[in-house]
């Protein structure tokens, strides 16, 4: 039996460069390069691996501005069968609840098209463990709930899918260890960086992908209620953004001719003044 998958891909700014404009207090996003959310590449690789052994199709799905088609073209270069970009002003400003509402509507439509063509629908939805901008990790579980999928987050090793019993086994990373879970298909998994890194995409494939078509869907083609999309459909509101309180550069304890033992004594005197360490130096 073949396995049909969705891989959710978010285009994100290279977050190390995002800053707050000190004057306006708003995010400076202009001129910041966009990349595929790094965890989504692990998700993509996991999906490709399942297809290697079971066949079936992979659809890469992203919600974002028109430029997000770059991320999907990259996914095509890695070998996905189909790429769909959900792009519409109505989707803008979505929090995770509105995001999963919109993505799940698209996944239903894709599944419907598969069943109309005689296939079994969607068996697996792959997400990254979290994005590097919004950083919430809430989209994967949200999709699982909305589509009534088994939910397995923080997967650090995806083991074989058993197409006969329609189950998948995966190791899930927790703070205190790892647990081996068996989940019934259809399933939503979120993938961590402990899984395999993305395979090599051959240059000709990437070049070909650059010209490959990405389907762009607007709200009109989805079965959705307009009030549940984008900012309107988002219960959370960002009431302000600000730069994290900057740490101030502190004191330099070293000097041109200061010997290391004096520096060390000075440091621990300072720490003792702050009440962090016991007592004074014996020297």
């Amino acid at each position: 039996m073949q396995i049909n998958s969705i891989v959710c891909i978010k285009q994100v700014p290279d977050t190390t460069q995002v800053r707050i404009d000190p004057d306006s207090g708003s995010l400076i996003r202009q001129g910041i390069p966009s990349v595929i959310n790094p965890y989504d590449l692990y998700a993509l690789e996991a999906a490709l691996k399942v297809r290697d052994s079971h066949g079936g199709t992979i659809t890469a799905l992203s919600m974002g501005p028109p430029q997000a088609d770059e991320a999907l073209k990259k996914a095509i270069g890695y070998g996905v069968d189909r790429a769909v970009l959900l792009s519409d002003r109505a989707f803008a400003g979505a929090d995770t609840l509105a995001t999963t509402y919109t993505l799940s509507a698209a996944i239903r439509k894709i599944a419907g098209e598969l069943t109309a063509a005689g296939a079994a629908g969607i068996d697996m939805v792959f997400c990254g463990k979290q994005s590097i901008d919004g950083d919430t990790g809430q989209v994967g579980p949200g999709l699982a709930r909305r589509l009534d999928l088994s939910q397995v987050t923080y997967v650090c090793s995806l083991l074989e899918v058993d197409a006969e019993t329609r189950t998948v086994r995966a190791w899930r990373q927790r703070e205190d260890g790892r647990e081996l879970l068996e989940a019934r298909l259809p399933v939503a998994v979120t993938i961590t960086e402990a899984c395999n890194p993305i395979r090599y995409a051959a240059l000709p494939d990437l070049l070909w992908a650059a010209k490959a078509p990405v389907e762009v869907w607007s709200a009109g083609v989805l079965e959705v209620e307009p009030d549940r999309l984008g900012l309107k459909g988002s219960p959370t509101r960002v009431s302000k953004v600000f730069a994290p309180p900057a740490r101030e550069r502190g004191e330099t304890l070293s000097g041109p001719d200061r010997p290391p033992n004096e520096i060390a004594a000075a440091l621990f005197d300072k720490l003792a003044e702050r009440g962090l360490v016991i007592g004074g130096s014996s020297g």
Partner: protein
Amino acid sequence: MPVGSGDVWVVVEQEGGRAEPVSWELMGEAAALARELGVRPAAVILGSTGRQLSRTAFSSGAEVAYLVEHPDLEPYTADPHCQALVELAEKFSPQIILLGATTRGRDLASAAATELETGLTADCTRLDIDTTKKLLRQTRPAFGGNVMATIITPHHLPQIATVRPGVFTAPQPVEGVSGETVVLKPHIKAAATAVKQLQFAPNPNTGVTLNGAKVIVAGGRGLKAGRNFALLEELAAELGGEVGASRGAVDAGWISQHRQVGQTGQTVRPVLYFAVGISGAVQHLAGMQESDVIVAINNDPEAPIFEVADYGIVGDLFDVMPAMIGEVKQRKLAAGGEASPALLKQGGGMRTKTGAGGGSE
């Protein structure tokens, strides 16, 4: 839309009757928020854990404990917990639900917020009440720590947030206090057991507990070789701390990935952080810049780590580190006993009740 009159809940993260410390950290904060709103703080304990945990909940500030018992609730899997929490929330209409921002708390919170069709703010480092609007203001880092955002859920209840462990301090338990206990048997649909735990493998090197460490001595590529981490291990041992590392050192194969601090490693908030031979790349800073005191040792005076260091030492770490170790040993001797840790137990105190990352108000 509704201004809540419901209680402030904490979902206690527990397994086999052992709760995660973050649950009690949140209980203390929930009690403060509830006081401000004039409602009750409550603990939600999912699983069949007996009364022991509810006693801890009461001694940590809860006035109500919901004991939600069902065989499908242990071991933890998302769906049964989600169903139980949603049923409870629909029945008792809390206005705020707090969970730890752990792999489990995030897993459960996202599922439950979706079912309840309400807002969920992730990984908060500060919570307070907008007293005029009676709304929870949830402040969190985003963009890898470069940006702080304050988020509200103005028109939906409950307002749900996950909170980073270690941000709040667990209250000193007050013995002998009690509260109302409500025992419930939730209806969990059979389909909810579509995920089964087959096996649990605890972390092999249980020694690595960077998250709770008061002192971290972290090393980078400046160490030049894995064996030189012995210098850091010695200082860490003397101070009762843990050894951490930059990704540079991890990628060089000098030290286990479990000890990596930063954006793709662990986020730590010790009282004292030593960055030794670490340049201070932004991805490293993202994981440690909320430490109370940062000491940087680097032979390059231009290294960016000095921008965030409270105490900068420009010098060769191979000269400075032995001097540090010698100094600590000397002080411990002077303080009268090798066994006594050099750090005061309740050290720090610079960490405010509302946690780090607070905005300028």
